[in-house]
Structure formats: C-alpha cells, structure tokens
C-alpha cells in the first residue's frame, strides 16, 4: 500500500504538479555532458580503464527514449566530449552521429525490442566505438596495440545494463512533478 502510493507520487501522479519543462528537455543533455567530464576527475589513470561513460549514457538515453534526443545531438554533445576526452578533436562528433543514425535505422527495422536485443545492439556499438576511437588516435600519432583496450571493452560492455538502470533513474528525475500548477 505504502509502496504503491510512493511509486504513484514519483511517476507523475501528484495532483496540481507537473514536470518542469526545462528539466524534461535539458536533463538528458546535462547527464551526458557530466558523463563526459566527471569520470576523468576520479583518477589519473595510466591505462584506459574507465568506460566511455558519456557515450554509454548517450546510448542509454537513445535506447530508453528514442526520439527524445534529436539525431543531430551527436554534434554538440560529441564536440563537448572531444574537449575533454583526449581523442583527436571531432572523433566523438563523427562516431556519436553515426551511432545515432545506426540506431535509427535499426529501430525502423526492428521496432519490437527486449532487454537482450538492446544489450546486443549496444554491445556492438560500444565495441565498434572503442575500436574506432583507438584507430583514430593511432592515425593521429599514437601507436597503441589493440590489447590495451581489451579491459576497457569488457568493462564497458558489462557495465552497460547498469548504466541503463541509472538512465532509467534519471528519466524518473526528469519527469518528476516539481512545478506547481496555478
């Protein structure tokens, strides 16, 4: 009983209250941008160990709410990610935009999805993203062998369902009724 009322209050059923329009639109962008910056602060790593969290959250929003982020969202968000990622500038702009297009096409072909198909789809995109990032960095002057990204790929793929849960939590915050209607 209590649980039910609690879930009702947090899923947009409060009388006289509506979700903030600014938060409903801007929150995904904010979380992706934070996902691009904040993980770099946690450790000064001497190997690529952190998953690309900005990209994972971007993917999570795209899969949870298709159409919430426009297809061109990869341009500004990727540009922001490039400022901090250390990759050659433009790498994320290119790859995030291509990710959005690929997801749109798959979604048109396979409108009915479940957890496993989404995870498989995300797995393919994450592996392709990390490998292409390495390839672009190597073209730009580095010469890292492909084995340095193996731990990162594994961590990223396994942590994606968790990121999906966190994005779902963000989605509830996004739609929390906090604006008093008059």
């Amino acid at each position, binding site marked *: 009983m209590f649980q039910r009322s609690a879930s009702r209050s947090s899923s947009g059923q409060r009388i006289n209250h509506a979700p903030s329009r600014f938060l409903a639109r801007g929150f995904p962008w904010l979380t992706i941008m934070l996902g691009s910056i904040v993980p770099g602060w946690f450790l000064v790593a001497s190997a690529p160990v952190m998953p690309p969290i900005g990209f994972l959250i971007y993917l999570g929003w795209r899969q949870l709410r298709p159409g919430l982020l426009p297809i061109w969202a990869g341009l500004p968000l990727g540009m922001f990610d490039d400022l901090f990622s250390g990759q050659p500038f433009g790498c994320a702009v290119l790859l995030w*935009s291509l990710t959005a297009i690929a997801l749109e096409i798959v979604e048109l072909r396979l409108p009915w999805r479940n957890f496993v198909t989404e995870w498989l789809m995300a797995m393919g995109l994450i592996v392709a993203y990390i490998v292409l990032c390495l390839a672009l960095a190597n073209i730009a002057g580095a010469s890292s062998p492909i084995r340095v990204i193996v731990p990162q790929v594994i961590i990223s793929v396994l942590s994606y369902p968790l990121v999906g849960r966190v994005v779902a939590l963000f989605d509830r915050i996004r739609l929390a009724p906090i604006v008093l209607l008059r």
Partner: protein
Amino acid sequence: MAPPANRRSSYSRRAQYTTFISYTAGVLGAAVGLALVIISLVNPGFFSTLRGLADDATEPAAQVSASGRDMGRDAWANLSGFFHTGSEHARISRELAEAKVRLVEARAAMAENKRLKDLMGLSEQDGGAVTYARLTASTSASSRRYATLGAGRDRNVAPGMPVRSQMGLVGRVMEVGASSARVLLVTDSESLVPVRRAADGVPAFAQGNGDGTLRIRLINLGINPLRKGDVLVTSGSGGLYRPGTPMAIVTDLIRDGAIARVLSNPSDTDYVMVEKSWAPPPPPPPATDSTTKKR
C-alpha cells in the same frame, strides 16, 4: 517493448519534412565530425585553444575533486598503516640511520663534483621548479594518456616543460591554458624519453605502451644487457628532460629491450613539480666550408 507511437510516419506533410530535416541534420553532423577529425589529424594543435578554455572552465571543480581524491587515498593509507605501525616504525628508524650516513657521503660527493666542475670550467645553471600543482584530471576513457595540470600560463607554465613528482618523471606539458595545462604522460604511446641505465649508462629510449607500462628500446642492438630490476633515469639527450630524473624499473625482458614499470604512478602523486625545460649545451657551429666556398 512496443515502438513509441509518435515515431510512426504520418501523412502530414509537416511531420514528414521534420523527419527529413532531422535525418539530414544527423548526416550533416557526421560530415562535420569527419571534417573536424581531418582538421585535427592535419593540424593537431588547431583546437588546443578550445581545449584550454574548456579545461580552464572546469578547473575549479576538478581541483575540488582532486583534493577529495587525495583525502580518500590518505584515509586508506592511515587505516592500513594503523595495523602495522610498530614493525614499520622499527624498519623506518633503521633505514633512517643508514640514510643519514649516505646523505653525508652524498653531500661530500656533491661538493667534490662541484669542485671538479669548477676546476674544468663547466658551468651548469640550475633549472629548478617553475611551479607546484596538482594533476586534476586525466583522459581515463581514451587510449591516449593526457592529464590536466591545475596550473597554466598564470604560473609561468610553458609547453615542453617536464613534469615530475618526488618519485620520478611524470610527463611533459603539451598545451597551456590560462589556469590549466595539458600534460602528455610518459605512458602515452607518443611519448619517447631518452633514458640510460642508472648503474652504468646503457643508453635507450623509453616509449609508452599505452597500458601503463613502458617499452625500453636499446640504442645499441646486440646482446641485451638489461636485467630485471634495473632502474632507468633520463639521460638528457635531446635536451627536454633534465638528466638523472628517475623514470622506470625493468620488469620483463624482451628480445630487443625490456618492459618497464613507471616509478611515479601519476594516480599516487598529489602534487607534481613543473621544471624548466633543460637546455642542452648549444650545438657546435655548422661547418663554414661550404659557405666560404660560395663566397
């Protein structure tokens, strides 16, 4: 999960146009990305101003989280130190007694060195520290190894300056912003540091592997003289890194060199020192034969 209803195409001309434009914008975004990648491949420093601005803007928050990181590490060290404080104390006091004797010896050697150098008329200006700052952030998700330094042009940091911690060489400054700078860590695969073995001066290059280790490439090929546990210091050739900065310790031997571990793990250092880039002795003047012949 069912497809969202609002995504189905409709007969409305306006909705169709909107869909078309958004797809076009998506493809355009990818094209812009490709153009940016090509620009940054051709001219890697083209966007450094932009990156500097971004690092400057996030620098206060990064400083706060860096101090939090230090505090977390210190708390863990305190906690683990609590359990073997007695044995540690005994060992440290024994080592301190030894170290005091060594220090006196080292002072004597240094004084003698100075005297001999004075005799030979060699002058050596002291580089010294430019500034001390924190490493605030790093590119932990990329295969490139950059770190952000919490000091920039405001504290006289300039590109090319070596960065070291008390344990050893950390990297060198690549790009400088107003209050932050970007440091290329020695573990990046683009970083190439001339080193020599501390014991006898076998020359080599230390190149980053990208995974936290260094690859030591010997300059004189032949029988591999390196052994496990050898300590490598910078040799100063090329004139960027001050000679004698401790750098790495050999962990594995390979056919034409070794794999080494960096002595100063950048995640364990709270403050790093930015040094002046070491000026090499000026190169000998070029032979003037050809120019005199032309005249």
